[in-house]
């Protein structure tokens, strides 16, 4: 649970990222640096393009019809462009979605599939599965039923399984789109603990509507806002600074509105 190194170069650099759906611009010109090992929270009202921004980082926007993405992204100093292999990219950047989406197979299989796909030999499957399940704190709960269907787990357990599945390929960056919004408070707390324990070893970018959660977890914050029908990034920086003394009037209004 180490704190991120403030002097290290950003692992992810975004310049001028714009996203449009069917010709309509939904996100305009985002500039953002993501610190290595830090937890970066993306906050802001609904519809400001936070999820679209997240999806554009691992090219999941390519699955959405008529979605166009412009701008520059650098991962670990390397420029990402059309020629970049999505396979390589999605191994470095993992994603967890709002609703837990375990595959309709057993718990173990959920983890075996991406492992086998990345060339992990059969002899190592068990070991790596156990390792990642321990990492997310799920091993004790599911060790006995690792071969039963994943959808017999509770919502919180399923989400942790999804996090495990995203981590099993050992990505540098983990994207999380409101990972706790579909869960009860106890599961939420468990996942927040997990996020805290992963801090330092994995860079995390989390979209959240829960300001308390952002306060508890985030090292850095990026505030999104809607301007003239399109989303934009209005403020970003270390969490402490943004929360205590927001530079932008809209940020202040947002923080105030949700507190009052």
């Amino acid at each position, binding site marked *: 649970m180490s704190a991120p190194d403030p002097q290290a170069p950003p692992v992810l650099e975004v310049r001028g990222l714009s996203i449009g759906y069917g010709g309509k611009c939904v996100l305009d010109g985002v500039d953002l640096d993501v610190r290595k090992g830090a937890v970066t929270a993306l906050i802001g009202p609904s519809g400001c393009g936070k999820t679209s921004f997240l999806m554009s980082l*691992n090219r*999941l926007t390519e*699955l959405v*019809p008529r979605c166009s993405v412009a701008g520059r992204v650098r991962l670990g100093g390397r420029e990402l462009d059309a020629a970049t292999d*999505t*396979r390589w*990219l*999605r*191994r470095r950047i*993992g*994603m967890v*979605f709002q*609703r837990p*989406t375990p*595959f*309709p*197979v*057993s718990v173990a*299989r959920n983890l075996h*599939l*991406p492992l*086998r*796909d990345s060339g992990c030999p059969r002899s190592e499957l068990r070991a790596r599965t156990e390792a990642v399940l321990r990492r997310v704190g799920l091993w004790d709960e599911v060790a006995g039923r690792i*071969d*039963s*269907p994943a959808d017999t787990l509770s919502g919180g357990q399923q989400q942790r399984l*999804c996090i495990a*599945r*995203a981590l099993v*390929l050992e990505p540098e960056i983990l994207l999380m789109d409101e990972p706790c919004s579909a869960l009860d408070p106890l599961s939420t707390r468990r996942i927040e603990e997990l996020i805290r324990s992963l801090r330092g070893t994995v860079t995390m970018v989390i979209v959240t509507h829960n300001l308390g959660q952002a306060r508890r977890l985030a090292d850095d914050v990026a505030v999104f806002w809607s301007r003239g029908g399109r989303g934009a990034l209005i403020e970003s920086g270390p969490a402490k600074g943004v929360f205590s003394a927001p530079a932008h009037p809209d940020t202040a209004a947002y923080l105030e509105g949700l507190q009052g």
Partner: protein
Amino acid sequence: MPVRDERRAESPGELVLTVLACGSAVVVFAVFAWIVGDIVRHGASEISWSFLVDPPSRAGRAGGISSVIVSTLEILLVCLGVAVPIGVGAALFLAEVARGGRFAGRLVRAGLDVLAGVPSIVSGLFGNAFFCVTLGLGFSILSGGLTLACMVLPLLTRSLELGLRSVPDDYRMAAAALDLSSTRFFAQILLPAAAPGLAAGLLLGIGRAMAETAALILTSGSVDRMPGSLLDSGRALSVHVYELAMNVPGGEARAYATALVLVLLLVAINLLSNTMVHRLVSPRVSA
């Protein structure tokens, strides 16, 4: 978690709807019972073990239907052996590769839909001209099976495609985020999850194939001897029923008996397909 409705008082409009729905179900039940009852009543008396294992004699007025049964099964195997792989491939293409409104997908789908509507005797004509004459297969089980494959393909593809589409998008997104190879995703997640659709399509396909008469008359002929190889002509069960009913005076009783056998076979295949669906789904999940 069952989403059972509460037994609140339904408005009169809703009551009418309920009556309509239940009424039509009753009508369907009743018709089914009537038809099956007739078949059983008229046909059961003729059925015996010798009926099933003896070949027909005196144009079917006597003897049994053994050769006819064998011919039918062989035709079915040829048909499915060709139609299922093509159908699975086409459905995967339509549901996954060419998703949504892309032009290629719509073209293929339109082509398949039209094929679905092609009347059976047209398929028979085509099968006759192409398989029997052009490819030189003559009146044979192979010709019949291939023709039926063309007829069954659209039903199979559409049903499987429906099944594939009903698999939630969540799985696709999660698999994409992990960059799971398509081959692995299709084989280990998508197809098992869509197994019910395949089974349903298979059912409808088999039903359609076995029910086919006109096309088979023109492609596999109506020779009622036991077929020696796939290139021999053979009479299918449905063709036998037709011949006995229309062209053999006094053949109605035997026609009903054959019809009964046909229907029973269909029921058996139905049950078999359903158990196959269950077996297809469970081992995957606990693997």
